């Protein structure tokens, strides 16, 4: 523990660690020192001069070094002649700080008056009006009138789009530099800068497309005025009209805590509409940040494409039916003798849905299948990240190994947290087949060829035959006290993922990186609740096609196999009776015999288990629409018709059943998931000037699940060996699936704001590979396998490995695992 220092702020004694800034020390004891440029997550700059205070330091005798005392015996304190900026001054022993003297008030008053000379005061139309630190601090500390002529205000064009997502109003900007510093220091996307000086200083972006950062929305939160606004919320509502409901982001396995802002609108018939998504503080998960996908990706909820009533197949057509009819049909199928039941569930479902579906399937001796291309959930449940771990605490002495994952695209907030751990002194080893954004911060970079993931990890066990670069990484891993391994699905199908997960688990076991805080294995899952699905009993299936084909009764929930791969579509067609739980009319739903419309995540309650294995609850944000029902209710009702004792009324009751059946969840309930504890920095509505407009967390930090190792259970990890799946060889070009943040999945289709940022629909290849196949950059080609044939374009990039082509998942081509394809140039003159 760092050495502590005590000082006196406004006659209150404060004890804080050495190195703390005066402004933060004051905040700790509830004394507000107004700031604009200071942010507790960023380095101090002292630009706004609003935090001026009187600071006195004890006087020491120059010769003896003793503290000088006055007549009464008290230590003599000398105040400097001028006010000091409390945001750049670190505390020192015996310091005396005065924040309420007339001089301080006068200084604040003048600073605010001066800032307002070039502020347009268009609060009535400003999106920040009502939650604006400038507005609040002016009311509290500022002058009522200005001595400066109103006509001298600078006038610039109001709207200056920095990109298609963020709009800048230069008049409102008070040049605090928080956005610039956020982009430079925190997310290392230095796309914003100041231009010119003095009163003409402006923010500008130097990237193409403008403001090219996946974290850009956070700048609107830290902006202390309405200079930066998102297109999504522009003029959407006044902040005081909004209601707040806590939720969990559904877009990736990080499980960012969010607060959804709503208000009643005409377009929803007087019902609540989601107006914006804001980060909710959880220092152990997402701190106070979220990525733009999470911030803008909510539009699917209000999509026109949503299903509203059950459909059943009559005379070959799907026709609307009542719930009773639909339930009856499914019940009849379930009651038939020797029904081979297969349940295919996606990681988008909540724990409660998955539990009910699993129990229903299990009671019929059916096969519960997880629709995922990643393996290893059984391993993460046993030797995964231990309870109470916090990536935000990892630093010196820790090692983080990231393999086969482009964290920046797969789980942006983890990327941020790993990067920050490196800043605090952690050792980062990145192993990848292609360069990723994370490698910039890596102490050691290991490069392998796609398909040799486990082989590269094997080096860590047999340190004898490794080259020099790898030896350093191997030694770093062996020397570390704490270790976390992230593995992803970059270029891997299910088989490859199984081998990689086992190899990672072997390393964890060999180095004893489990069963202790800040140690363990983390899978960068492909969906928000894939870990929960494993915990509830679902397992992916290597022979999914065969399993689907042989099913007598196939239940598909939150998965669209037919839409993802024509081969699966054929298999689903061969299944005898298909029941689909869906939000949208997907390709699988079109093949179904019964389609149940389900509620979207913000329309219902439930819980997700994040990749760090933190069970977190989400609330019902908007009123349940008529028609659709939640998945747990539908599956629970069917189970009850079958005579099973499952809950259908409330996810709270389902969670009680989960707690009694799944050991890791024994401590989990809706009450424990809602527990909160004080967090630093202090964020919240009353402290917007300090931490920005992110929401404070009053609704629950979630429960960090203990791994089997934490619980002291005997581990059954199976044979953990370093082998890769046998390399397939075939004629043609090897396509490698990778994950991009902005893909063309169902959930992102309604977010038109991101249309320009979607991953290119192209085969990414090295120029040499392109030359081999005789194709050029930007050209359209015919891509085909024995199953399908599609048109796709080519993008050439010389940082990629040779001999393969990369393709983004959920982006048009049905590529889940590495496959071989034929590509053919299109004949000239065609299609023009």
């Amino acid at each position, binding site marked *: 523990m760092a050495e502590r220092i005590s000082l006196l702020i406004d006659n209150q004694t404060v004890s804080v660690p050495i190195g703390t800034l005066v402004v933060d020390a004051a905040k700790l004891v509830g004394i507000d020192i107004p700031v604009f440029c200071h942010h507790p997550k960023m380095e101090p700059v002292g630009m706004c001069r609003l935090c001026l205070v009187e600071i006195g330091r004890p006087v020491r005798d120059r010769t003896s070094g003793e503290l000088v005392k006055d007549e009464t015996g008290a230590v003599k304190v000398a105040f400097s002649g001028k006010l000091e900026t409390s945001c750049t001054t670190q505390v020192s022993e015996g310091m005396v700080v005065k924040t309420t003297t007339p001089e301080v008030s006068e200084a604040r008053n003048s600073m605010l008056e001066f800032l307002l000379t070039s502020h347009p*005061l*268009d609060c*009535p*139309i400003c999106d920040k*009006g009502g939650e604006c630190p400038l507005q609040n601090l002016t009311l509290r500390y500022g002058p009522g009138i200005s001595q400066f002529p*109103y006509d001298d205000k600078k006038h610039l*064009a*109001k*709207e200056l789009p920095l990109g298609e997502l963020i709009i800048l109003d230069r008049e409102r900007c008070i040049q605090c530099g928080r956005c610039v510093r956020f982009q430079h220091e925190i997310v290392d996307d230095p796309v914003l800068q100041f231009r010119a000086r003095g009163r003409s200083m402006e923010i500008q972006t130097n990237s193409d497309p403008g403001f090219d950062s996946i974290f850009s929305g956070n700048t609107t939160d830290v902006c202390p005025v309405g200079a930066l606004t998102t297109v999504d919320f*522009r*003029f*959407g*509502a*006044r902040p*005081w*009209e909004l209601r707040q409901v806590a939720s969990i982001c559904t877009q990736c396995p990080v499980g960012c805590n969010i607060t959804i802002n709503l208000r*009643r*609108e*005409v377009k929803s018939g007087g019902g609540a509409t989601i107006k914006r998504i804001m980060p909710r503080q959880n220092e152990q998960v997402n701190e106070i940040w979220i990525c733009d996908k999470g911030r803008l990706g909510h539009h699917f909820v209000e999509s026109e494409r949503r299903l509203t009533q059950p459909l059943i197949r009559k005379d070959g057509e799907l026709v609307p039916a009542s719930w009773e009819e639909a339930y009856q049909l499914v019940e009849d199928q379930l009651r038939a003798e020797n029904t081979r039941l297969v349940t295919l569930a996606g990681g988008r479902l909540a724990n409660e849905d998955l539990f009910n579906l699993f129990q229903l399937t299990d009671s019929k001796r059916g096969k519960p299948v997880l629709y995922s291309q990643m393996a290893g959930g059984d391993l993460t449940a046993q030797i995964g990240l231990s309870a109470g771990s916090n990536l935000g605490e990892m630093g010196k002495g820790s090692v983080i190994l990231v393999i086969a994952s482009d964290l920046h695209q797969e789980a942006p907030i983890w990327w941020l947290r790993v990067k920050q751990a490196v800043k605090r002194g952690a050792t980062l080893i990145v192993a990848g087949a292609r360069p990723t954004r994370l490698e910039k911060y890596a102490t050691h970079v290991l490069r392998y060829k796609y398909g040799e993931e486990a082989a590269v990890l094997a080096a860590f066990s047999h340190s004898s035959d490794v080259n020099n670069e790898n030896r350093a990484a191997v030694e770093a891993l062996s020397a570390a006290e704490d270790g976390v391994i992230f593995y992803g699905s970059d270029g891997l199908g299910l088989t490859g993922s199984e081998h990689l997960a086992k190899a990672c688990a072997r390393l964890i076991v060999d180095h004893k990186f489990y069963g202790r805080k800040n140690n363990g294995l983390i899978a960068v899952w492909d969906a928000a609740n894939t870990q929960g699905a494993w915990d509830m009993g679902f397992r992916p299936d290597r022979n999914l096609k065969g399993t689907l084909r042989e099913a007598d009764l196939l239940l598909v929930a939150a998965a669209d196999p037919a839409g993802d791969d024509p081969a699966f579509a054929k298999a689903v067609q061969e299944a005898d009776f298909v029941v689909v739980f869906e939000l949208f009319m997907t390709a699988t739903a079109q093949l179904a015999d019964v389609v149940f419309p389900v509620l979207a995540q913000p329309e219902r309650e439930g819980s997700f288990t994040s990749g760090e294995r933190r069970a977190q609850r989400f609330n019902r944000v908007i009123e349940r629409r008529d028609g659709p029902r939640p998945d747990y209710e539908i599956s629970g009702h069917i189970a009850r018709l079958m005579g099973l004792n499952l809950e259908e009324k409330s996810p709270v009751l389902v969670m009680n059943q989960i707690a009694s059946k799944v050991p890791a969840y024994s401590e989990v309930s809706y009450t424990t998931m809602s527990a909160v504890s004080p967090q630093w920095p202090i964020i919240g509505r009353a402290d917007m000037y300090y931490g920005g407009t992110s929401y404070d967390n009053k609704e629950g930090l979630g429960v960090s699940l203990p791994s089997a190792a934490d619980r002291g259970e005997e581990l059954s990890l199976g044979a953990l060996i370093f082998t890769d799946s046998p390399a397939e060889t075939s004629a043609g070009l090897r396509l490698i699936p990778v994950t991009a943040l902005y893909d063309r999945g169902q959930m992102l289709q309604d977010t038109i704001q991101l249309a320009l940022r979607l991953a290119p629909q192209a085969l990414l290849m090295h120029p040499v590979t392109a030359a081999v196949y005789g194709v050029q950059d930007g050209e359209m080609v015919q891509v085909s396998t024995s199953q399908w044939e599609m048109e796709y374009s080519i993008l050439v990039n010389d940082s990629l490995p040779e001999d393969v082509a990369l393709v983004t998942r959920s982006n048009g081509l049905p590529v889940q695992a590495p496959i071989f394809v034929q590509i053919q140039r299109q004949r000239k003159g065609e299609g023009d």
Partner: protein
Amino acid sequence: MLKGLFTTLKMALEKPVTIQYPEHKRPVSTRFKGRHTLKRYDNGLEKCIGCSLCSAACPADAIFVEAAENSDEVRYSPGERYASTYEINMIRCIFCGYCQDACPTEAIVLGDQYELSFRDRFTSIYTKEALLEAVPDGVQTTPQKTLPNQFNRSVPVMENPKD
């Protein structure tokens, strides 16, 4: 008795106090607070910028505003923002005039109209179309097509009160 009859006679010859409503209407005082009107500038643009401050000031929660963005092609009001929906529920309204006080552009004014009657709750909700005053003669109604940078200020430049 004669005295009484005389009074009656005197009153009968005087001008009547009552007026023949609805044929005749009594003028109201200048400070009368009747039904709201949404004002326009002389050029026909709406004064309302959809800031929702009237709604925030309203003690009866009678006002509902939704805003949207202006463009030079489709312009309703000066500046970037206009009210795409503006509704006042007249049965809720208590005619206190706080909305008028809160308005930064003097767009909403409690006028001299007092004839408010409804057959059901829905007709008591006055929409923007009902509340907006007519455009001055010879001026195009909103939305207008305007020149770039002609109307880029939402709130007119404020002046200190003259009196």
